[in-house]
């Protein structure tokens, strides 16, 4: 489990875009570096990110090695009904983590 900070407004307006911000603690090791012994440090990045809203895919992103450690993702979402955003990311070790945030339409 890695640490994640999610910022989503608690209450949003129907049909109006709001920002979802996500900060993930991850080394994002690029695979380009070598250690003190000259051995290549294996790549370890978050390689895919999927956000769904009540099961419907909202955003899918592939991430690449040029992204710095502790990546920050921000995107806009529009919803018609209250529901739950689920954000799933996968890293090179195959670790999958899902974080959720509920959104209430007023």
């Amino acid at each position: 489990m890695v640490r994640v900070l999610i910022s989503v407004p608690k209450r949003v307006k129907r049909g109006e875009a709001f920002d979802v911000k996500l900060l993930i603690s991850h080394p994002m090791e690029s695979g380009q570096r070598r250690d003190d012994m000259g051995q290549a440090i294996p790549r370890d990045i978050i390689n895919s990110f999927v956000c769904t809203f009540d099961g419907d895919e909202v955003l899918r992103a592939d991430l690449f090695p040029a992204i710095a450690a502790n990546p920050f993702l921000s995107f806009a979402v529009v919803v018609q009904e209250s529901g739950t955003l689920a954000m799933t990311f996968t890293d090179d070790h195959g670790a999958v983590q899902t974080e959720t945030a509920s959104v209430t339409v007023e």
Partner: protein
Amino acid sequence: MSRLPSWCPWPFLQGGPASLVLAGLLALTVAPASAADKRSGYQDASPETQAMQDDDAANPGFLWVQQGETLWSGRVGNANRSCADCHGAAPATMRGVAARYPMFDARLGRPITLPQRIQQCRVERQGAAPLASESDALLGLTAYVGLQSRGMPMQVAIDGPAQPSFEAGKALFTTRQGQFNLSCAQCHDGLAGQRLAGSVIPQGQPNGYPEYRLEWQGMGSLERRIRNCLVGVRAEPFAADAPELADLELYLGWRANGLRVETPAVRP
């Protein structure tokens, strides 16, 4: 500049007119910035870095704050006690605390930094093993306590028994050291605002620690930052938790008095 080693990588420093110009620059009056001229490293950071610090959702330091908040209420050690069991809710009880550190500890007879105080509490009151220095847990707790003072002016006391430590710290700040034979004051008092290669030389104000440095891609303490600078002038860095470091941090803290606490700051 004659004391530069003969293998110095910058041949122009070895002699000739250019070295005289540089020597002249370094000889400029070195005086601490007055209260009005105090400048947080925030003001020297790029607009993008400032924006990152301004938005708590984008500031990676809050990943550590989040961890610290969890640890605050976690029971540990032989005493099976959490920070919250004694100190209660941090937003109320820890407000303004970090702005007063480093603080003179009468029992130890020397100044103590905030991470050292947390370690002291952990060992003596919680009966737990100390956290590793620069560990995420220690940085997290320090950041969480520091955050409670955000926006408050630094007010480090140097009177009474702290005076000798303060003088020792001041002496360290103004003493030339390392193979480059530079003192902290030469750059951070004398040349602050000018450039070292592409980067602006900041005043070196410690009002945002522990801070997230983009260069580190992680969180670090003031101690780590000082070590960074010492290696930069090719001096032998102080050992972890060396008393000299606390003296130096006391001087730096006093020097920043009046600047607002920015923990967790984001710096390049």
